[in-house]
């Protein structure tokens, strides 16, 4: 069977199914009908009032603006939450445009349906679709309709560079260049073929004539939009592939960068909130006697599912809220406790037996292969709920007046935030203006609309602008959590130790669909099943989503197979990846960087893990010191192939970041439920990795396929936990089958 395997990293079906998109009710596959003739025309006239209002500013197409001083603005339809996307996308656009990087500015696209990109829709819905140039306008129009219907202006899924960057920003830059050249050719009366662009200038080498882009911007906007402008090949890249400094860092180093929480309006008041501790419960009664007498307090609101105190200052609001004694309704969720939940997972999995649950993928006959296997390996793994704990607590400012509403926040999907506010008020989306700011951490948390809806409801109840800020306690206890989960495996090995069957059943499947699957490993027979075990707790995408748990489950179990086969984890994975050149190159690079065969001091261990996700192949080697009372992670070596790293330093920063985020979860991350409520509340009982615990990180990048890019924000995370726990096994012989490590007794 091994001979039929390819190096595909993921199955093609169901690539993108985040709830938001399913929820929009658009059937993507069925709607992609060639022949719906909607040509994406040049929307410059419609867009200018929003983004090119200034004197001398000229839009060339939707994403490129040139002003009289020859400053080029790249208009970016994604939000900046630390991933450096403004800079990376501007690099892609400016490179194709041959713009002078020192004169490139960045403008976040407004939260308006006109700034939905058909390319976003296309990347989400049909990432591998290629069509002849003549059909591009038709297909583009179809996707534009779909994207608009779905409010597709979202940042997530490690998708921005590989989707918007490749399909929209580069194309927009290249198209603008062709339009500028066409305009210059008319003006100078020379063939367009004799002109070229360089550093935001149009040059005619024959006559030594040159002039800035600005001179032709207005005429360029009148040119027809090229269907398929010519994109550069990698040898001609000037900005892509270079570690350009990020545009947002200076403002984030002097306190001037504005986040959602920094919104400021004349006459603005402040709201502190407390939601019913058990999600689904309501406020039955509240004693506000002392609260209402406190200084600065303006309004005390029982909103049903939460209490809001509005005051002149936030601290006043918080102080007053703290004195309110409230009683909440009983709900079914009240009886839920964490141990009972894991017991419920176990019984549901027991009941499913060998045949129950929903089959996600199946190949060959696992039952027969397992029965005939020379060695049988079984294991069960568990992970807890996790909170996002963004440094900026959830917040939103809203002002409802005259049947209209303005909303200020930092959100991963501005159009969806706008719609949520409109739906809350029962008004048209056109009557809501949504203002997005920098996000003080996103990690999936800021793709939810709960804070937007709460602030809008409060604003509706008062007559002035109001800024709602969650306390850290609310932020921790009212999150949309990474679900807790249990996963069980059975594998059979032949007499040489080769895996011949792989069977897995796990609770819960959210997204991406391929997270529990291992198509890159040569295992002839496999069957993967899932069972949903719903709880009243809200769950949501958490950095790398389901890969965050399945990376740990799968790579721990592969390590157990290696041990059962009497081989080391690196050598065993090499065999499983045999024939997949790109995968092997990444695995080999990580091992080589780490000096896999070099001896380590007594009590230290080295572990390896390999997880392709979000289009990027990643292998990590962890070095862990087990000589102390608790594990000390010394160093992480990361090898990654994202196809092509547009900004290698930004990519490395995302790997470092994923390691810190993943290591927090591995060492400490645990949200637990008692009587239906989350028990943790602040950083004392939901600890975050601190600088003294941060390992050294070394990142090696392989540019394995410049045509098909992978993501950066998430793929560094899934291999981290298993690399660490595999290193612990190497050092101590103790296999960690439940996270976090703070629960494990290493004595």
């Amino acid at each position, binding site marked *: 069977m091994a001979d039929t395997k390819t190096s595909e990293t993921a199955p093609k079906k169901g690539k993108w199914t985040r709830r938001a998109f399913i929820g929009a009710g658009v059937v993507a596959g069925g709607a992609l009908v060639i022949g719906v003739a909607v040509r994406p025309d040049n929307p410059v006239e419609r867009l200018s009032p929003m983004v090119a209002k200034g004197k001398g500013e000229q839009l060339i197409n939707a994403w490129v603006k040139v002003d009289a001083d020859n400053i080029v603005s790249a208009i970016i339809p994604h939000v900046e939450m630390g991933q450096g996307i403004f800079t990376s996308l501007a690099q892609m656009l400016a490179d194709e445009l041959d713009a002078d990087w020192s004169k490139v500015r960045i403008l976040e696209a407004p939260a308006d349906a006109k700034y939905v990109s058909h390319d976003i829709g296309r990347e989400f819905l049909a990432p591998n679709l290629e069509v002849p140039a003549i059909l591009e306008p038709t297909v583009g129009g179809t996707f534009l309709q779909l994207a608009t219907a779905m409010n597709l202006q979202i940042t997530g899924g490690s998708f921005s560079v590989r989707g918007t960057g490749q399909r929209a920003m580069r194309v927009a830059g290249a198209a603008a260049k062709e339009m500028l050249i066409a305009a210059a050719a008319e003006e100078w009366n020379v063939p367009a073929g004799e002109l070229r662009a360089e550093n935001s200038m149009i040059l005619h080498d024959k006559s030594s004539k040159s002039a800035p882009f600005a001179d032709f911007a207005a005429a360029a906007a009148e040119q027809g939009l090229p269907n398929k402008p010519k994109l550069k090949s990698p040898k001609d890249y000037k900005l892509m592939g270079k*570690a350009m400094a990020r545009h947002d860092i200076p403002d984030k180093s002097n306190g001037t960068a504005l986040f959602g929480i920094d919104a400021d309006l004349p006459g603005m008041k402040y709201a502190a909130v407390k939601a019913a501790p058990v999600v689904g419960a309501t406020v039955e009664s509240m004693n506000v006697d002392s609260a209402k007498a406190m200084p600065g307090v303006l309004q005390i609101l029982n909103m049903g599912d939460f209490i809001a105190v509005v005051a002149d200052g936030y601290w006043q609001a918080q102080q007053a809220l703290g004195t309110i004694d409230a009683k909440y309704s009983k709900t079914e969720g009240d009886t839920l406790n964490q141990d009972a939940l894991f017991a419920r997972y176990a019984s549901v999995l027991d009941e499913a037996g060998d045949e129950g649950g929903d089959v996600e993928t199946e190949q060959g006959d696992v039952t027969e292969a397992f029965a005939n296997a020379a060695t049988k390996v079984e294991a069960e793994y568990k992970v807890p709920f996790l909170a996002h704990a963004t440094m900026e607590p959830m917040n939103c400012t809203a002002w409802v007046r005259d049947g209209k509403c303005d909303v200020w926040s930092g959100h991963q999907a501005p159009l969806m935030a706008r719609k949520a506010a409109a739906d809350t008020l029962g008004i048209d989306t056109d009557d809501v203006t949504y203002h997005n700011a*920098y996000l003080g951490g996103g990690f999936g948390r800021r793709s939810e609309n709960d804070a937007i809806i709460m602030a809008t409801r409060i604003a509706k109840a008062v007559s002035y602008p109001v800024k709602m800020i969650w306390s850290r306690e609310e932020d921790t206890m009212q999150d949309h959590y990474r679900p807790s989960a249990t996963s069980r495996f059975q594998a059979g090995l032949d007499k040489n130790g080769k895996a011949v069957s792989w069977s897995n059943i796990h609770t819960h499947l959210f997204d991406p669909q391929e997270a529990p699957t291992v198509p890159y490993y040569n295992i002839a027979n496999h069957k993967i099943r899932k069972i949903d075990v719903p709880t009243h707790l809200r769950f949501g995408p958490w950095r790398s989503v389901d890969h965050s748990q399945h990376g740990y489950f799968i790579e721990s179990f592969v390590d157990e197979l290696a041990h059962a086969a009497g081989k080391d984890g690196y050598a065993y994975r090499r065999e499983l990846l045999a024939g997949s050149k790109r995968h092997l190159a990444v695995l080999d690079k990580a091992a080589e960087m780490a000096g896999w065969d070099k001896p380590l001091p007594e009590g230290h261990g080295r572990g390896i893990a390999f997880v392709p996700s979000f289009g990027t192949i990643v292998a990590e080697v962890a070095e862990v010191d087990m000589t102390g009372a608790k594990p000390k992670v010394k160093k992480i070596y990361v090898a990654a192939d994202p196809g092509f790293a547009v900004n290698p330093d930004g990519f490395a920063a995302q790997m470092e970041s994923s390691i810190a985020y993943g290591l927090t979860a591995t060492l400490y991350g645990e949200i637990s439920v008692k009587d239906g409520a989350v028990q943790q509340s602040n950083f004392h009982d939901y600890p975050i990795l601190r600088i003294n615990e941060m390992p050294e990180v070394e990142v090696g990048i392989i540019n394995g396929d410049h045509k098909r890019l992978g993501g950066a924000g998430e793929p560094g995370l899934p291999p981290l936990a298993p690399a660490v726990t595999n290193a612990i096994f190497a050092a101590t012989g103790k296999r960690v089958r439940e996270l976090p490590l703070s629960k494990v007794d290493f004595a």
Partner: protein
Amino acid sequence: MITLNVNGEAKEVEVDPATPILWVVRENLKMTGTKFGCGVALCGACTVHLDGKPVRSCSTPVSEADGKAITTIEGLAEEDGTFSKVQQAWVDQQVAQCGYCQSGQIMSATALLKKNPNPTDEQIDAAMAGNICRCGTYVRIRKAIKTAAGVSSETQEA
């Protein structure tokens, strides 16, 4: 009425003396560079200097600033906007990601270097362990502090 000395300027505010410095600076003085993170001095996002020493402004009542100089992130650069050594090192080492905690990180690092111009790795870790960064910029924070201390000068392309 309370008179405060903030970044070298006298400011008058009408607040309850128990109000934490954080909210006075952010809401009354409209200087939003100082951030709210946890409210209980566990994360360091709100770090400011009181007479040059780092304090957690979310848990320090404004009454404690009486007769003392408050320095916030807005007060580190020169008057013409030229970044302080620490701020410049933050840019050179491309530290910030989401950036929300970085005002607090820079304030802590500035206080560290004032006290100890040439800190070791262990001293950096000890001085900075009170500042949480959820984006995990710790590797670069270490480098930036060394850059600011003049130990290393590796930088990114501009």
